[in-house]
């Protein structure tokens, strides 16, 4: 059955121990879309990604990927579902003991019975798609940050997944690499018919390429909309985030006792 929504989160709540991180999230990602989940550090974006990937189980609510609910899956079923997903980790998470070629070939070798000749061609194709076919024999330690992430992307799409999850793909890259990655995410989503869920706090790059944005703050979705809607939003939190304002709903000063009191205490003599 064709599902229009590839990813659905319904009223999802999650706590790390006693600390509640997500308190009722409703989120959908349609096929062929690039959606972004944004918010400041520690707001729970990465937790959402891990919930979608099945690395953690929701305390409440439903997480559905391609129509299958993740809550009740056992390990073999979860692993079967994960073959339809790819994930790009923040720093690539390439296997450091093997060259680029073997990294991209890894999912092919583990999950298919394809002969080495077929694998060779597929690896070359994926590397070509990210522009790194010439780097096939380099070791991960020799790659720059941007290149490592591109190789990881090639690895994530090796099995032609339906869904690709990106954990902070723009973090720490130079302007050119930023453009390259953003471009790749959009192009691959369109040409391969994927769905992409991008977790990021890089506003400028992501707003260029996404179809829909969800803003997370304090465990709930505070705003959502298309890129244009978000840019034009007047909600204080969204406005502060999008325009990079130093002070607003997220205050500049970390909670501290009164300044004058603090100084006087320091200045008082024995």
């Amino acid at each position, binding site marked *: 059955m064709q599902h229009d929504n590839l990813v659905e989160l319904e009223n999802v709540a999650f706590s790390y121990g006693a600390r509640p991180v997500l308190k009722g999230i409703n989120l959908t990602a349609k096929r062929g879309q690039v959606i972004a989940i944004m918010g400041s550090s520690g707001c729970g974006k990465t937790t959402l990604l891990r919930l979608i*990937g099945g*690395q953690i189980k929701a305390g409440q609510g439903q997480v559905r990927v391609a129509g299958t609910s993740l809550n009740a899956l056992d*390990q073999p079923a979860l*692993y*079967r579902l*994960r*073959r339809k*997903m*790819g*994930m790009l*980790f*923040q*720093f690539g*998470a*390439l*296997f*450091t003991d093997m060259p680029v070629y073997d990294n991209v070939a*890894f*999912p092919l070798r*583990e*999950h298919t019975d394809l002969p080495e000749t077929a694998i060779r061609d597929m690896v070359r194709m994926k590397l070509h798609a990210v522009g790194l076919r010439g780097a096939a024999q380099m070791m991960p330690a020799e790659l720059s940050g941007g290149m490592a992430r591109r190789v*990881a992307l090639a*690895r994530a799409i090796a099995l032609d997944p339906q869904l690709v999850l990106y954990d902070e793909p723009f973090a720490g890259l130079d302007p050119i690499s930023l453009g390259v990655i953003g471009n790749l995410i959009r192009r691959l989503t369109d040409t391969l018919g994927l769905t992409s869920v991008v977790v990021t706090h890089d506003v400028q790059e992501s707003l260029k390429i996404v179809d829909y944005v969800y803003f997370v703050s304090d465990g709930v979705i505070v705003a959502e909309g298309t890129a244009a809607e978000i840019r034009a939003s007047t909600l204080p939190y969204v406005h502060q985030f999008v325009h990079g304002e130093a002070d607003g709903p997220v205050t500049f000063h970390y909670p501290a006792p009164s300044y004058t009191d603090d100084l006087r205490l320091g200045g008082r003599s024995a």
Partner: protein
Amino acid sequence: MLKQAIANLGNRTLQGVGRIGFAVRFFVAILLHSGTAFRRLGLTIREMYFSGVQSLIIILVSGLFVGMVLGLQGYETLQTYGSEEALGILVAMSLVRELGPVVAALLFASRAGSAITAEIGLMKATEQLSAMEMMAVDPVARVVAPRFWAGVISMPLLAGLFSAMGIFGGYLVGVQLIGVDEGAFWSQMQNAVDFEQDILNGVIKSVVFGIAITTIALFEGYDAPPTAEGVSGATTRTVVTSSLAVLALDFVLTAFMFRGLG
């Protein structure tokens, strides 16, 4: 203040117990997921290279020196009873029963054990294990189990090599250097060292040590906090914990095995 200290102690004890429970579950998980390690023997063989072959130099050299020292010290002591010809027995028994399995295990723990912990800890810290999970490959089956079996298979081989080198070292010092009778050296040794009692027990000991050390090394790496200090602390803990475990197990096994002689 005292209440706080007691609360802390209780907390840490509970944490420690929880950790031991987790370690046992981890060990069982390794055994259950060992199918891959045997079906894809290449993985295990690769790990045997890194754990076993790369420990060869330190094992062989240490074995040689330990054997030579045994030869020297043994001769000194036996001379007072006029029993120099029993040097072969002394060197062989000490090595095969105790020093071979135990010292080789301690060396293995510090060289290969710490390397395993560091490697797995780093893989965890750089999210390689998570990446593997997300690619629907079970890291316990693919990464942990082959290393476990590599360690268990390598350990008795290394212990045997250690003992053999040691006996050779004792022979070099005793017969060639000092001048103990060569025939007496070997014949007395052969008459006294029994296959079942001494050699087989030594092999059993080294297999048990291999299981203990490798499990501890893998567990500490898998459980390490994903930071630089976390991995470094885990590596230290591996060496300390597995060394203590080897010595404690040695006592237990020796009591079991050699009690019958009493």
